[in-house]
């Protein structure tokens, strides 16, 4: 009888040791996945790569669900093999979201920059044409040009201020707004530059 009691006691101890000693959640991998998700968020993936971000979120939710499922089991029956795979998937998805976020932001930035540069180039070209016409006596003396030049001068002044607004929008990372404004501005400047080119050609200005 006493022998049996000792045996049962030892068995319980072994089971308790096994329960405590095995199948712990892969904390390091979990932390890695969480850090990857935070990095994706910081790279503005929700704004610039919404689909990739959603996938990363869902992958992380699956990890949490699996961890919870294992947690609910009796310690001896827990297994984190599937959880490890899900964590790896979530980490990959988060990294992909981060990369997509960076790439998306870069693209928006480049598009805005290209549009602003194009608007600035148009304005520079119009300013050069205007300066050429101002130096051109033949054109300046022509009555049909005189009034137009006054107006064009005012227009070019206003565009200079608008270009400054574009830079301000760009600096605030409002890339969509900056791009739309730059395209609109270019749409206004180009016809004026075209008119000035016509005047320059007509009066054979250098």
């Amino acid at each position, binding site marked *: 009888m006493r022998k049996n009691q000792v045996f049962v006691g030892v068995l319980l101890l072994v089971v308790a040791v096994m329960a405590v000693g095995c199948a712990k959640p892969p904390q390091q991998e979990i932390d890695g996945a969480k850090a990857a998700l935070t990095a994706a968020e910081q790279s503005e993936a929700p704004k610039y790569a919404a689909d990739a971000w959603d996938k990363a979120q869902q992958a992380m939710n699956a990890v949490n669900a699996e961890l919870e499922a294992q947690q609910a089991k009796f310690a001896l029956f827990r297994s984190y093999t599937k959880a490890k795979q899900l964590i790896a998937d979530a980490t990959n998805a988060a990294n992909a979201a981060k990369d997509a976020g960076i790439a998306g932001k870069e693209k928006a930035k480049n598009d805005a920059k290209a549009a602003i540069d194009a608007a600035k180039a148009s304005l520079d070209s119009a300013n050069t044409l205007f300066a050429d016409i101002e130096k051109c006596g033949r054109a300046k003396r022509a009555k049909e040009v005189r*009034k137009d030049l006054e107006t064009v001068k005012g227009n070019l002044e206003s565009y200079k201020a608008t270009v400054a607004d574009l830079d301000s929008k760009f600096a605030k990372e409002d890339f969509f707004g900056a791009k739309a404004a730059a395209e609109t501005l270019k749409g206004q400047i180009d016809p004026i530059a075209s008119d000035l080119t016509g005047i320059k050609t007509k009066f054979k200005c250098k």
Partner: protein
Amino acid sequence: MQVSHSHRSDQEAAAGNRRRFSVRSIGAIVLVAGLAGCARQATPEVEGARRAAYRAVAIVRPAAPAQARLIERLVAIAEIATAAEANAPWWEGSVGRTEAAWLRVMRTANLAVGAVRAADRSARARYAGLQPNARHEVTRALAEINEAGMQSREAAAMQRALVSISLAEKLAAVGRYQEAADDLASAHASAAVVHRKWIALHARFSDPANLRLWRAWAVQTIEDSRRTGGTAILIDKLRRRLTLYRAGRVIASYPAELGANGLVRKEHSGDRATPEGRYHIVRAKRTPETKYNKALLINYPNDEDRMRFALGRRRGTISHRAGIGNLIEIHGDGGEGQDWTDGCVALTNEDMNRLFAHVGVGVPVTIVGTYDR
């Protein structure tokens, strides 16, 4: 006898054991059946809520990213609750926890979507309210900008208005009504710069003192023509019309163009304004004396112009470097449909030829702001 008593006793004990076993078995069956009957409810179906939550995130994210992030976090919590519920042993199961978590998600999502949609509706309504008025104001400013006297400042404002309204319409087309409404407001404000200048330019044409003076000049010119039987020229700047009188009667009337700042009274050289006053022709020119086909030089500046110029200099309203100006003519080469000269009055060459046939040196030329009001 003893044996038989013992045998009966064994039989009774065995019967007792069987009864106890039966009772225990029945008890165990009842317990298992009871436990089976007490099995927890099925895990709630959350797929609909999950899809709705992601839809809400997609709607909310562009306008309120922090709210979208909150919904995402609540979804994560709800997913954990759902997984816990699905895997919990029966004695720990509580469907209510999962339901509560998803209800919290849906409540937050509904509130956030509602707020975003309300803000969107409000911005859209603001845009729709502002758009026709802003468009009208910009169109009005476009009509006003060619008025004589508009300067580069107004031209710049006009361009800002055009850029802003174009941008507003572009933003509205992609649903960014809040920014679109702001740009409309900016277009409206820029158009107002043009309006203010236009109103200021026209204010002097409603001033009773000016109207009295101009009417007196006009009446005097016509009366002199009637009295002497001679010809006289009367120019109405606001109406842009030159009228030729003989013996006090109108014999011809021509559309005229003024200086680029023609609605303003001339004060000094280079202001491109057209003078106002009573003058006379001092010289009649033909090509090649003039590059404008034909020209009638008037005696600007007259004594009154000189007095005003001197007064302006004393008061500091006219720069000391500025001259009073001269060479104000009625000349040809007009017909541009806008005010463009440096202060002269331009007619078409045909009208100038007709006028030239009727007038000569000494003919009075009266230029007024307007006299027909």
